[in-house]
């Protein structure tokens, strides 16, 4: 025991431990609802899922105990506060990418992701990053489209580029 001076309660660790316990209950509840046909009653489809759920429960509870006693991380690590703004930018980039990759196409969505992530890591030159992202994504897109004939998600930009390529070839 590391015997922390304060109340001995570690908020972050406690949340994580509770999350694991909650997951364990979801797993167990879902495992019990898997239908078992009479044929396979001996070793059915629920045995290992229930074991997984019980495993998560046991270790989740162990984590909970540990968290209530002050947590498992050394103090200096607890003291490190995550940079929320940076994290926010990256997460925003991921969310934007999911939302835009279908309607706007791979390249545009990648540019958005690229700009958000570089911004999160402290880059200020958004325009330059957008260009880098665009070139990178387009090379990837064309590489797939031209060598393996796979369309990795086309949208506005890709259609434009394809149009230009067809025009040039047509001449």
């Amino acid at each position, binding site marked *: 025991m590391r015997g922390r001076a304060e109340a001995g309660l570690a908020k972050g660790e406690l949340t994580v431990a509770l999350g694991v316990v909650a997951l364990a209950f979801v797993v167990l509840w879902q495992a019990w609802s898997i239908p078992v*046909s*009479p*044929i396979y009653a001996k070793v059915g489809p629920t045995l290992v899922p229930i074991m997984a759920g019980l495993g998560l429960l046991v270790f989740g509870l162990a984590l909970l105990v540990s968290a209530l006693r002050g947590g498992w991380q050394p103090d200096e690590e607890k003291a490190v506060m995550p940079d929320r703004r940076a994290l926010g930018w990256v997460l925003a980039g991921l969310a934007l990418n999911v939302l835009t990759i*279908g*309607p706007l*196409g791979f390249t545009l969505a990648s540019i958005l992701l690229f700009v958000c992530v570089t911004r999160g890591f402290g880059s200020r030159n958004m325009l330059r990053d957008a260009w880098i992202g665009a070139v990178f994504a387009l090379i990837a897109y064309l590489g797939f*489209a031209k060598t393996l*004939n796979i*369309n990795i*998600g*086309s*949208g506005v930009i*890709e*259609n434009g580029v*394809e149009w230009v390529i*067809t025009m040039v*070839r047509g001449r």
Partner: protein
Amino acid sequence: MISRRDFVVGASGAAAMAAGLGSLPAQAQTVDLLKMFVPAAPGGGWDQTARSLEAVLRATGAVNGVQITNVPGAGGAVGLPQFLNNWRGQGNSLMVAGMVMVGSLIANKSPLKITTAVPVARLTGEFLALAVPASSPFKDAKDFVAALKADPTKVPVAGGSAGGSDHILLGTIAKAVGVPAARVSYVAFAGGGPAMAALLGSQVAAGISGYGEFGEQIKAGKLRVLAISADKRQDGIDAPTFKEQGIDVELFNWRGVFAPPGVSDADRNAMIAMISKMAATPQWAEMCKQRDWTQITLTGDGYKAFLDAEVARIEGILKDLGLA
């Protein structure tokens, strides 16, 4: 979604032209671009059907370009909704699917029905075979059935995933000979390789698979076929059918093509005409022979009637197996 699809059509049309494929000028009845939807990964049976269709249709000048889209997952249950919704009304498109999809939709309790798509033609079938290792005491299907009747749990049978065509055949056999289908001991393997290995290594009593997969092992004397699930003796195959041995079982793992819902009657008829013509070509016959596919062409309304009966039949067997 729609804009992407339109683009794909344009781009691949251009690509096909650029690649010099189908470079002859379009003829009167030629379809410029046929779009095929394969609700499975590249390389599988449906995909091979699509690519063989492509080769024959192009070689015979029926189409200029073909574009194949694969949407794999859950025996076709992931792809089907996309075909039914996003491809609705597109007259130049076909989906390749088959018995496995019927089974997986029922087993997965999917609300969708294969019959929502417009049946165009049933094309090929692969009959299945029941085989044993060369050293097995079973000499024919009757031996196997006798053992099954004595104690089904002592006769483990290997095959593909639960609820697939192999499993369905075993259920059908059990039902035909009066053994409760739920009592047979079926060992599901992930794919034909591991199942065949278990059979070759005598880890199981018998195995079920497409005849083609067993063919070479039989020639090499490593396996013995007890029976095939065809309706009659097959040329070049020295194995009796189940029916010949008094077991009333017939099963084809069939594959066919469908048009999306909402196509006009004219489009549907044009597709049926194109596919019927293709199925009658020697090129197609050659292709089927190479791949051990039996031609069982059936088009339009006949196909639709067959489908309805097939869905009901498979649902019944899967219920017996405890899967539906």
